[in-house]
């Protein structure tokens, strides 16, 4: 069964360092997302991406964050200068909202997550 894969599973970094989290969405999906979850709490929307551009972003997704789909398969989240409060689990998700396969359910399929620890 197709799945969303994320790397690394865990990254420890020093405050102020740049971090790149990588995701390979399900191959025929067209919408891609990053969410984050702090300590098993609420799942917070960061950004959605469609047709090679950001379609929506939240207030959390400030200038320190960026996303890219560099090669047609990977979808990356970059945090330029990490802060302590960026420590969280980051989930990538993809959706078949526009794939025409499933009556536009918009169901998100999540990866296993990348745990980011900022020291």
């Amino acid at each position, binding site marked *: 069964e197709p799945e969303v894969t994320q790397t690394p599973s865990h990254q420890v970094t020093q405050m102020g360092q740049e971090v790149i989290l990588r995701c390979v969405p399900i191959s025929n999906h067209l*919408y891609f*997302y990053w*969410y984050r979850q702090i300590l*098993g*709490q*609420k*799942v*917070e*929307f960061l950004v*959605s991406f*469609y047709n090679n551009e950001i*379609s*929506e972003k*939240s207030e959390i997704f400030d200038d320190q964050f960026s996303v890219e789909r560099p090669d047609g398969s990977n979808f990356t989240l970059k945090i330029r200068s990490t802060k302590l409060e960026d420590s969280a689990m980051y*989930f990538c*998700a993809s959706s078949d*909202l526009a794939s025409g396969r499933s*009556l536009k*359910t*918009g*169901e*998100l*399929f*999540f*990866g*296993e*997550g990348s745990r980011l620890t900022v020291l």
Partner: protein
Amino acid sequence: ELKVEQNPLFLSMQEGKNYTIYCNYSTTSDRLYWYRQDPGKSLESLFVLLSNGAVKQEGRLMASLDTKARLSTLHITAAVHDLSATYFCAGGPPMRDKIIFGKGTRLHILP
């Protein structure tokens, strides 16, 4: 902006009992989802509800949607320990890509 509220946030129940988790949302949502999360794990899709009156069942879980009341429910029948997890509902604002999650209901089923 769509807000999604779940209650209760914590639920401890005995095996064999029935219970319902409620999910209210603040504005129109053209789709409603239920997800399950085990500790330290990813989010697993349980149900997608797209229309008023939609009801879906999988095993001991049944989800329903009332768009007029802006309410979805997740009903647990004859709970078993394996259903212990955190359950999230999430709504999708019309014509928007993002999905907004509730705070989750942490369900603990006692043997």
